[in-house]
């Protein structure tokens, strides 16, 4: 096991497109263990994609279970993931281990349907929403060489979903 080095923007390798995983073996398990250790070494990180450590295969790990009061699927290893359905959109603020000292607003689908293989190569399907769906969309972008800074929307004049703390007006 090892903590791998995270590529940081403007490293051009972050623009590489990753290749599908075709062999599910001990080598893949070893890499996933390292990727997991690297993700856990970062404070508050809820996901990581293989290309962030310079390994250009379609593998991501997402685990938003540390967040309170949200729906989630716990710890997920997603190999060759594909989003097959999108529904709704909302804005949220994102940061990335590969883009230090910068955060920005990004619009993502609210709900997605996802098909992915696990580390053993078995196909799994997920319906997810909100924070977890955002995390998955962010990580899948890495597999196509995209960073959240490629999808920024205005920081001012933003469109946050105002569903929390909103009070009834007096009328």
């Amino acid at each position: 096991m090892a903590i791998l080095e995270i590529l940081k923007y403007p490293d051009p390798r972050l623009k590489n497109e990753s290749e599908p995983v075709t062999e599910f073996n001990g080598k893949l398990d070893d890499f996933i263990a390292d990727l997991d250790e690297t993700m856990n070494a970062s404070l508050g990180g809820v996901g990581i994609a293989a290309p962030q450590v310079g390994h250009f295969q379609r593998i991501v790990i997402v685990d938003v279970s540390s967040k309170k009061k949200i729906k989630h699927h716990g710890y997920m290893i997603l190999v060759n993931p594909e989003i097959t359905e999108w529904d709704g959109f909302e804005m949220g603020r994102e940061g990335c281990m590969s883009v230090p000292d910068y955060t920005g607003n990004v619009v993502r689908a609210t709900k997605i349907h996802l098909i992915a293989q696990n580390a053993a190569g078995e196909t799994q399907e997920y319906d997810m929403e909100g924070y977890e769906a955002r995390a998955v969309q962010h990580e899948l972008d890495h597999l196509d060489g995209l960073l959240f800074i490629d999808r920024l929307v205005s920081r001012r004049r933003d469109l946050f979903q105002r569903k929390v703390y909103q009070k009834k007006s007096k009328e």
Partner: protein
Amino acid sequence: MSQWFMLTLVGKDQAGIVAQTTTALYEQGCNLGEASMLRLGGNFTMMLMIEFQGTSETLDKQLQPLADKLQLKLHFDPIEGELHHHQQSDVVITVHGADRAGIVSQVTTKLADAGLNIIDLASDVGGNAENPFYIMQIEGTATQGLDRLEQALQALQQSDLKVTMTPVDTMVM
């Protein structure tokens, strides 16, 4: 030795202010840092961090021909600048209502008392001369927690202002 300066610039808005100003600075050997540039009431405004190996007097002198040509007011102040130390906001507060004097003072005083450190504030006057409205978006960090801020804002709910507070949950991946 290089030093950070803050350029403050105001002038009647016209095309080319940013291009010509930054070109003049580049030609003097300046490196630019963080910036805010905005059109306000028909004026173009800039707050711009500049790294320069020299004095503000030199910059003043070198930029004067451009300032004269474009009718810009500008000045440079030496500052203690540093990059790569952004503070992350954890809350966005929006306020709007019929325009009147005192909105910003009233709201931000309550917020400051409840521990809000403002990182970004943008406000505007919309509507028309007969019915102007004021709208303001504030981002900041709640140094005493979001609950304190929420309590502070509750008092304002009964005023003529519509106030909304949304936590900013930055997802880091």
